[in-house]
């Protein structure tokens, strides 16, 4: 797995479009859901995901094949998400409103049950309170249902680190969710 990824990255570095398409196919779904979890908007997630791959292509010459590709695209997309949030914040500030990231675009008012509210809150805290690396790992684990060794492989980390980060995420969540539990 790791070897294949490295070879693809080497080819992409040399402007190989077929290899780039392969990487795109391998990582698109995961990245899309990863971004969708953050921005809670399907269209926007699509844009950001596409933009992320475009940036990779533009900067293909500076790719480091030995480094985890998912870490790279997670970072690029996270930055693009921040750009988006910052923009929304600026816009809201102009309207004298506080940013309201808590509201989900996927929201269905009839289904607002206790569990949904809790889920909403988890969603909010993951997006707002977790550090980037911790968040990436948590989303991969929970949304993508990846095992810890898989995540460790994707992000080029030790399994131990992944476990620690997940545990850390849970601690942060628990602390912030006191009112809901």
């Amino acid at each position: 797995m790791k070897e294949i990824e490295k070879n693809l990255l080497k080819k992409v570095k040399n402007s190989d479009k077929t290899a780039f398409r392969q990487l795109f196919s391998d990582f698109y779904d995961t990245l899309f859901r990863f971004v969708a979890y953050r921005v809670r908007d399907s269209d926007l997630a699509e844009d950001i995901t596409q933009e992320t791959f475009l940036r990779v292509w533009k900067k293909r010459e500076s790719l480091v094949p030995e480094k985890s590709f998912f870490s790279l695209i997670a970072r690029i997309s996270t930055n693009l998400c921040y750009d988006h949030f910052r923009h929304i914040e600026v816009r809201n500030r102009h309207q004298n409103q506080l940013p309201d990231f808590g509201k989900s675009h996927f929201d269905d008012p009839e289904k607002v049950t206790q569990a949904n509210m809790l889920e909403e809150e988890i969603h909010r805290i993951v997006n707002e309170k977790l550090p980037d690396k911790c968040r990436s790992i948590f989303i991969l684990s929970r949304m993508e249902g990846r095992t810890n060794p898989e995540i460790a492989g994707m992000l080029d980390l030790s399994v131990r680190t992944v476990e620690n980060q997940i545990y850390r995420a849970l601690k942060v969540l628990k602390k912030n969710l006191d009112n809901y539990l």
Partner: protein
Amino acid sequence: MKLDNKEKLIWEVSTQTQLPPVPDKDAVWDRLVQEMKIDQNNFGITKKESSWKLWPNMGNKINIAIAYGLIFALLSPLAYNFFFTKKILTGNAQNETILLSDGTKIILNSKSKIIYGRNYNIDNRSIKLTGEAYFEVEKNDLPFTIETAYGVISVLGTSFNVRSREDGFEVGVNDGRIKLSNESYSIHLSKGQFIEVESSFEEKDIVDISIKEYPDWINQKFYCNETRLDELCSEIERTFDIQIKFLDQNLKNLTITGIIEASDLNDVLYTVSLLTKHKFKLEDDICTIL
């Protein structure tokens, strides 16, 4: 990992988030390929604004549009230019004196534009010029280059004037030495030399600067040496921000030789009137040569 009940609940609930379905990967790939092509076409310094038509599937939500716009804007060549280049332009009847970080002085004539990178004097000293400007270049290890539509001028430290307008190209050197080149020609011009050409830069076209106060516009003069009347008039239009119209279109082909004081519009028009033996009428900003 040992979890307490609360953590277990969080652990369970956090998998329940509904995420939207993943879009059609092939369609996304097609769009991506298009953008990759745009990127390739834009490689190099001369970046151009990309067409909006390549972005057909704009979401109907306004926030998406704005976010989209933001992302696009940040990546667009316009933003690139905004962040990495500086642009100075003058309108009609405006002159601008620019002092660059290396001590080089540029006097920009009316309706002209210069663009230079934020890294000017760090790893290059290159400037793009449209219109006319007078340069007093400080000596420096980095060569100073001016790109124009007609050719490139490179110097080390001199003063000279460049005129690169739609109706022609000229360079005159007041001090020092410059190199003028385009794809097929390359010549040197020294102190007191002047060339007025369109494309072929050749030794035979070099003449001596015949006027004391070169360039004329810096000294508020119009210097004409068999200059076509319409060329002079466009210079007057730019300098005084007026429009000049000819009733008799044949007048445009007249050539004029002489020096015209350019400090006062009425004086200028009066002189033109004398030279062409035609009266003029000035209403608002429009001068008609009868």
